[in-house]
């Protein structure tokens, strides 16, 4: 594992930890942004340009904004006096350790199953485009339908609110 990827991973994990432990919700969101940026840098470090930039564009550009709007419009953004400590933290820790163990075992087992590749795969945007339009066109269309349904649902919910307040 090279030095840059190590540093980026530390940054990502630190961002995620900060997102859980900071008291001010908006600070948590900003730490989450750091975590997303770290993931994007990891993608770029693995030579996946399209996915890396799409990660920045979609996650930092849209998802974070969405989370911010949700935080600001639904609860008061005043800093709570004490952090959010839950009483069942030990159970939570045990369950998350269990999930991590299962995931880690699955990843490590699959690495041994991959064929040895000497050169990095040559993936450019052309190939991604061809794959999306050729082999993966059905998932693409289903995702598009899902997004359309979500948009229409949001509009309907907002319109009903307006009708009710009138």
């Amino acid at each position, binding site marked *: 594992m090279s030095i840059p990827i190590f540093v980026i991973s530390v940054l990502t994990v630190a961002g995620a930890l900060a997102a859980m432990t900071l008291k001010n919700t908006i*600070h948590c969101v900003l730490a989450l942004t750091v975590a997303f940026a770290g993931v994007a840098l990891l993608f770029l470090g693995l030579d996946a*340009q399209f996915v890396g*930039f799409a990660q920045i564009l979609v996650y930092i*550009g849209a998802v974070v904004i969405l989370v*911010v*709007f949700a935080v*600001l419009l639904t609860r008061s953004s005043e800093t709570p006096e004490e952090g959010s400590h839950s009483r069942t933290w030990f159970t939570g820790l045990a369950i998350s350790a269990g999930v991590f163990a299962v995931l880690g075992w699955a990843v490590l087992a699959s690495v041994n199953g991959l064929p040895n590749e000497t050169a990095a795969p040559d993936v450019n*945007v052309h190939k991604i485009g061809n794959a999306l339009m050729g082999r993966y066109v059905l998932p693409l269309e289903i995702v598009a339908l899902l997004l359309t349904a979500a948009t229409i649902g949001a509009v309907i919910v907002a319109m009903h609110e307006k009708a009710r307040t009138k």
Partner: protein
Amino acid sequence: MIQTLDQIFVLFKNWLVGFLPAGWQVAAGVVLCVIAIIAVYPALFAIAVLLERKGLGRMQNRYGPNRVGPFGLFQPVADGIKALVKEDIVPLRADRVVHFLAPVVLVPIVFMGFAVLPMGRHMVLVNMDSGLLFFFAMGASTELAVFMAGWSSRNKYSLLGAMRAIAQMISYEVVLLLSSVAVVMIAGSLSLVKIVESQNHYTGIFPHWYVFTPWGLAGFLIFVVASTAETNRSPFDLPEGESEIVAGYFTEYSGFKFALFFLGEYVEMFAVAALGTTLFLGGWTAPFSFLGWVPTWIWFFAKILTWICVFIWFRGTLPRLRQDQLMNFAWKFVLPFSLLNLVVVALWRFLGPGWEQWVICSAILLVAYVVMGRTAFTLKNIGPRKYRYAE
């Protein structure tokens, strides 16, 4: 001789880097290019600020600043000194860390957009395969800095301005993306260098810029509108309108941080203008084939400065749009039109070269524009104002 003048910066960089051992040369070359970008664009920012103040002044029947140097040419220097020595006020209950980080996050992200723009033949910092996507990723990240600025000021007007700015930027980002996808469909690549190369042909003396095709002209006009809105310029500058909400999300900033925001806004204007010239106006190619002897970087910067002048012209002419008018315009007019533009591009490709593609595509776009424009007017119920609660 012409070739040398054209490639003079590249040759200079190669000569400078030649002094270093071979292992260091690539990194040193990149660092030199970055330094050049960081030096050139703030200088252009100073020129743009001066141009704006003098230009707006003349459009408004007055002189611009004309005291500080001959014809006011040293006004940006005076402004810079003022920004540096002004007191840096942070509100008492503001979130100091985020308040400090907002301009610090904005300025580098805005400068990163220049990494993929070809400023002349062989003059691009990184020739990325998905360069256009990188540019839009950086553009989307600037919204985060805007939100940080607005929220950390603990000022309800700043927050309101930031929310409006983000909503506006997201809506017009979608439009910007769709109008660029039209160009990508024809050029066949997301790499900006390839897009410029594909416009570098001439029939007779006329260039093959994409703006000279029907879908290109429509895409260009959509891009102009969306880029004006993306950078919060008049007529879309409600979030930072001086008469509406003081200064919107950068109300609580003074001194150098305000100067950084100002710099960020103008440099973003340059970046978006540069993207527009790369996509539609042929980047660094000359407008007529007999003008090919002029160095390509001169054409690039001339085109960017022309865009800036057009932005200033819009600012001097058009009244500000209200937030709901802005959003309606984006989602109900410009977005459907840009989707139609995509269909027209596909049709253009499908019909193949010849007169049919010109006539049919122009007809579709013109008819759609006129019909949508008229329905927009009739649906608007232009007449005496009706009140919801007053009567």
